[in-house]
């Protein structure tokens, strides 16, 4: 198994490539989910705000 990971001596380059790629995909998905959470929270606050004051904010 370890022989596989050694990539015949190119381990750093191969896993450095795939590691960063997967990491970057993961970060992008996480950011996209965060963006949705933030805007929904903001919209809820806006709605509560309009309901309390009775007119559109």
């Amino acid at each position, binding site marked *: 198994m370890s022989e*596989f990971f050694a990539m015949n001596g190119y381990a750093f380059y191969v896993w450095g490539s795939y590691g*960063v790629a997967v990491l970057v995909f993961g970060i*992008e*998905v996480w950011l996209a989910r965060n963006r949705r959470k933030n805007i929904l929270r903001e*919209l*809820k606050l*806006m709605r509560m705000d309009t309901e309390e004051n009775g007119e559109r904010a």
Partner: protein
Amino acid sequence: MAINWFKYSAPSTFYGLAGKLIPFFAWPAAILFATGLYIGFFVAPTDAVQSEAYRIIFIHVPASILSMFIYLIMAGYAALGLIFNTRLSSMMAQALAPTGALFAFISLWTGALWGKPMWGAWWVWDARLTSELILLFLYLGFIALQASIEDPRRADKAAALLAIVGSVNVPIIYFSVKWWNTLHQGATIKMTGTSMHVAMQQAMFIVLVACWLYVIAVALARVRSIILERERNTQWVNELKEVQS
């Protein structure tokens, strides 16, 4: 039953449709990505010249192909938004830009990690590498220009012009290996087929399709957030169940 395609060009109806579509792109993307990498690492043979280092190809080539394609699609949406004043088109262009920049970065990063053992250098001012770097800057410029202008509609127009003008760079990247004497390898996959080993071809193609599905899923998710942000004061957003709950 005539399908009214324009019905889905309104942000409110597209918001719902995009929400339903995302899982159908996201899950196949993950499955195909794993499958492609499995074939790439366990089925494809060792390369005679580069031994195991060549396996970087299964992420480097799809990322590079996509970095170019996404830019053309982004410029296309931006142009549509500019010409027809359709807000959703401009929103799609804005949604694609970060993912395109990401793939340009991955293309450059994996290329550098492949170039170091094979060429002995992380970076060379080679025609292909330099034009890809310009592509990354164009993406970042598009995002920055879009973000820097307060009024979304004016921001869309300005960014659209940059995207359209910048699209001349994509054919330059593609043909760079033919026009100039570059260190970067010429096109291995030509219309006439490829000299690659069949398992290598399969792995790369599967990862390419996986990345395509990933791009669509992420762009749809991001465009939904953009729609909510831009239409925050509208009635239909206010009545969304996720806002009501």
